[in-house]
C-alpha cells in the first residue's frame, strides 16, 4: 500500500493529466453525428501519428555505429510520417466534400 501511495504522490501531476485527458477525449467525442464518424476516426488516426516525435528522438539518440538503432529509427520515422501526412491529407479530402455541398 505504501508503495502505491508514494507512487501516487510522486506522479500526482502526471496522473491528473492522464485522468483529465481521458475525460476530455470522451467528452469531446460523445456528441458526434454519425455522418462524421469516418472523418473523425481518420482525424484521430492522424493525431496519434504524434509518435513520430518519439521516432525522431530515437534517431537523434542512436549512436553513429549502432546500425540496428539507426535502421529502426529510420523506418520508424518513415512510418510515423506516413501516418501523420497521409492521415491528415485523407481526412482533409473527405471533409472537402462536405464543405462543397453547402453552396
Amino acid at each position: 500500500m505504501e508503495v502505491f501511495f508514494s507512487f501516487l504522490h510522486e506522479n500526482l501531476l502526471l496522473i491528473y493529466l492522464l485522468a483529465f485527458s481521458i475525460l476530455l477525449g470522451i467528452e469531446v467525442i460523445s456528441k458526434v453525428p454519425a455522418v462524421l464518424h469516418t472523418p473523425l476516426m481518420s482525424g484521430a488516426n492522424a493525431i496519434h501519428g504524434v509518435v513520430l516525435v518519439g521516432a525522431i528522438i530515437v534517431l537523434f539518440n542512436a549512436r553513429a555505429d549502432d546500425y540496428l538503432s539507426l535502421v529502426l529509427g529510420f523506418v520508424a520515422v518513415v512510418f510515423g510520417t506516413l501516418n501523420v501526412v497521409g492521415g491528415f491529407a485523407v481526412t482533409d479530402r473527405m471533409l472537402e466534400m462536405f464543405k462543397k455541398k453547402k453552396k
Partner: protein
Amino acid sequence: MSATYLLDLLYLIASLTFVVGLKMLSHPDTARRGNQVAAVGMGLAVMGTLLFHPSADRDLGDVRTFKLLLLYAALAIGGMIGWLAAYRVKMTSMPQMVSLFNGLGGGCAALLAVAELKLQYDGAGHDPISTGAMILVLFTMFFGSVSFTGSMLAYAKLEDMVKDSAITLPRHSVINMILLAGILGLIGYITWGAGENGMMWGLILFGIALVYGFMFVAPIGGADMPVVISVLNSFTGLTAAAAGIIYDNLVMLVGGILVGASGSILTILMCKAMNRSIMNVLVGSFGGGGAAGAGKAAGDQTIKEVSISDAAVLLNYSGSVVIVPGYGLAVAQAQKICKELDELLESNGVEVKYAIHPVAGRMPGHMNVLLAEADVPYPKLFDLEEANDIISKSDVVIVVGANDVVNPAAKDDPSSPIYGMPVLEVWEAKNVIVMKRSMKSGYAGIENELFFHARTKMLFGDAKDTLQKLVSEVKSL
C-alpha cells in the same frame, strides 16, 4: 536553455490544437477547419522536435550531419508516399486507407519500443530504467505490433485480398488465448526475471505480438471490420501515450490519450449501432462459424426479377422513393449517377430521400461521405429511426447494393448471427427494388429473406450500370 523552453511552448500549443481540432471535427460546419488546426499543431510539434529537442545536439560534426540526412530522407520519403497515397486513393477505399495509416503508426511505436529496449541492454552506460518504464516499453511493443499486423490484415480484408475462412484455424480462440497468456507471461518475465537475456526475449515478444495481431483480426468477419479498425485506432493512441511517458514527452502523451479515449468511445458508438457488445464482436467469430446459422430454406424459394423499363415506370409514377445505399454503391462508384436519378425523379415530381444505416458500407458514415461527394444535400439523408418512419410511408424503396443492413432476419430469426441488430425495415414499403450484382450473400455471409419477400423485385447487375440504364429509361418516358 531557451531552446528547450521554446520546445515546451510548442508542445503546449500542439496539445491544445489536438483538443480543439478534435472538438471541431465533431461538428459538420467546423470539421475541415478542425482537421487543419490539428495538422498545424502537429507540424509545430514535429518542427520543434527537429530544431529544439535536446537530443538533436547529441553529436558533433560528420555524425550529426549523417544523422540529419537520414532523418530528413525518412521524413521526405514518408511524407511523399503518404501525400500521394492520400490523394490517389478513391473515396470508396477510404476505410482501407485509414486502416493502413493506423497500422503504420502502430508499427512506428513498436519499432520505438525495440530501439528503447536495445538501449537498455547495450551496456553502454545508459541508466537502467525503472520497472514501471520497462513495463511501458513492453506494453508499447505489444500494442504497437498488434495494431500493425492487425491493421494490415484489416486492410487486406477490406480490399478483398483474403477470405475470412482461409485464415481461421480450428480452435482459433483457444490459440489466441494461449498467445495472449504467453505475451503477458513474457512481459512479466522480461521485467522481473530475464536479466541479461532481456533483449532476446524482447525480440521473441515482438515476434509473438506481431503474430497475435494477425490472429486477433483473422476470425473477425468483414462486416465487423469498422469496429476492429476503431479498436486498433485506440490501441495506437494508447501506445503513443505510453511512449510519451517513456520519453517524458507531454505532446505525445496528450495526443495519444485523446485518441485512445475518443477511439474507445467511437468503438462503443459503432457497437451500439449494431446492437452488439464489444466482447461479442471481438471474441465471437462472426464471419467464420456463424455463417451456417441462418441458411434456412433458401433453395426452394423463388425470386422475382424486374426489367429496367418496368422499374423506371414504377419509380417515375410513384409519389415517394427512398434510396438505401450500401457497399455495392461504393464498389460501383455509382454515387454520382445515383444523384442524377434522384434529380431526374425530383424534377418529375417524385419525392426522393435517402435512408442511411449507420454501418452501411465498410465504416460508419461511409455512405454519408460518398453521397457528400456526389453533392446530395444533407436534409435528404435520414438515419435509422427517422428512415424507418419514412420507409413505411413510401411507395418504392430502392436498395442499391446493401444487404445485411436490410435483412429481416435481424428482426425475426433468433438463430441468425445478426439477430437483434437494428435494420432498415424496407419490406414495410409498398414496393422494394433490390439492385444487386448476384444472389451472393452479403459481407456477413448470411442469407437474406428480403430477396424472396412478396414485395421485393430484383434488378441484377452492376449498380452503376443499372442506375445508368434506369436514368436513360426514365428520361425516355
